[in-house]
């Protein structure tokens, strides 16, 4: 699989990352080699095999649907990098 600059740029967008030139150079080669190895799965005949996204079929342990007090707002905001009063601060998104 050929990894070029435009695919790296596309993956940066999908991943919400901006790589340095050095990182781009390293990851271009790495991704090419790793995805080449992953493509080996193409050898397997998996025609009618169902997809398994979880180790077991019995995947959910339900609990009673009860109303409980919510997490304290002050605690939620405690690790905010930037807050004002009781809200997170983010740059303006509308003009």
């Amino acid at each position: 699989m050929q990894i070029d600059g435009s695919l790296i740029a596309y993956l940066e967008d999908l991943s919400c990352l901006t790589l340095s030139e050095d990182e781009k150079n390293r990851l271009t080669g790495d991704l090419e080699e790793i995805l080449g190895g992953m493509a080996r799965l193409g050898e397997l005949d998996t025609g009618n095999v169902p997809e398994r996204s979880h180790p077991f079929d019995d995947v959910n342990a339900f609990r009673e649907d009860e109303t409980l007090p919510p997490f304290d707002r002050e605690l939620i905001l405690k690790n905010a990098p930037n807050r004002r009063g009781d809200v997170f601060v983010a740059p303006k998104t509308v003009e």
Partner: protein
Amino acid sequence: MLNMSALKLSDAVRAKKLGVAEAVRAYLDKAAGNGHNAFLTVDGERALARAGAVQARLDAGELLSPLAGVPIALKDNITTAGVRTTCASKMLGGYVPVYNATVVEKLERAGLVVMGKLNMDEFAMGGSSETGAFGPVRNPWDVSRVAGGSSGGSAAAVAGGEIPIALGSDTGGSIRQPCSFCGVTGIKPTYGSVSRYGLIAYASSLDQIGPVGQSVEDCAALLSVISGPDEKDSTCVTGKAFDFGRDIPEKLDGFVIGLPRNYFGGGIDGAVRQAVLAAAEELEDAGGRVEEFEMPLMDYVIPAYYIIACAEASSNLSRYDGLKYGYRSASANTLSEVYRLSRSEGFGLEVKRRIMLGSFVLSSGYYDAYYKKALQTRALIKDAYDGLFKRFDMILSPVAPTTAYRLNENVDDPMKMYMGDIYTVSVNLAGLPAVSLPCGFDGKGLPVGFQLIGEAFSEKKLAAAAMAYQRRTDWHTKRPAGGEAV
């Protein structure tokens, strides 16, 4: 003074031969040197306060667990209220959680004393504990070598005698392989037997918390404490905590142990092969019957694992946005820049590599060929194991193809690093339990480990075989120079 297992240490505390604070102080002194960079945080003040509280409960006659009074340290992806939890990442360098992981609550109820947080690969992504933002963990047997990963801090701290017992987490071998590299014992429990609430997610369908200790007995005791249902984790499907009880058989008569002969072909070090095959003979002498077989799908486990793990990681790590908690770039002006720059400056290269791989395999046009194919391969691997456990009680295999390699030896070769997980990842894909045990040394004096893999929720059977092995051998009692327990 305290050269004893975690269980014996608790016995001494409960018999009032030793104070809890005395035990904690001794380990705090030992950990203070931190010569292996195993600890990221040592929480002395809180540990001593907790020691006092545990002592008061013991003195009041409260019946605590067989590990009451024992100091413990946790891999730094396990959330601790009021104590920095970094995942060895700049992204969470200043993160102080406001809640405890369920396992931490269970440890505290059982009277263990959390003493600190342990180094690891960044976000548990790696097999050498070199990808973290706070320097590599060094192997106590040879400090120029890696401790393995991603729970390298947990294994190195136990091997180095800096803590009697620890918790790690295993997504693709991250408890078992560092235990093998450092000559200690670890259990990767069945998926869904230990709550993941408060375990900072890497790959949610694969991650499990498990014990790292000096022996299977210690690890089983700790697994009894941390396992069991939790209403805060809906994937924790177990009905009750493990009870290893006192009826563990001494002999293995009737146990059929599968030995995958294709695990011992090319690519495995001669010394590892020899030590692991000797372990199989030992279990045969203990009454087990060893039968060779061919492990199916061996060439496909690494691609399937890395596709699924990276896909889940790319989704899980999308929560780090620089807004709610974690690192925020000082040079970001727009919302888009807050996201992109915070993530780009906060994550290390291996994490970025895996997020990008995950984004790729989930992207339009590639999803079917990679992600869907990997999920189908996972089904084949699970089916293969189901078939094998109709023939065998357990499977015996190497943990890693080599012993601990030199620091920086593989950091620029991710594919080589990933191939080191060849014997461990399929266990996670199938959700199975496995125990990693020391079984010898190579010519350089580095530990070798093997693993016993069982069907889901067969921990008691695995513990029986592992205890039988450790009763007959003394590999698990060997310690590196300076690594004697305090």
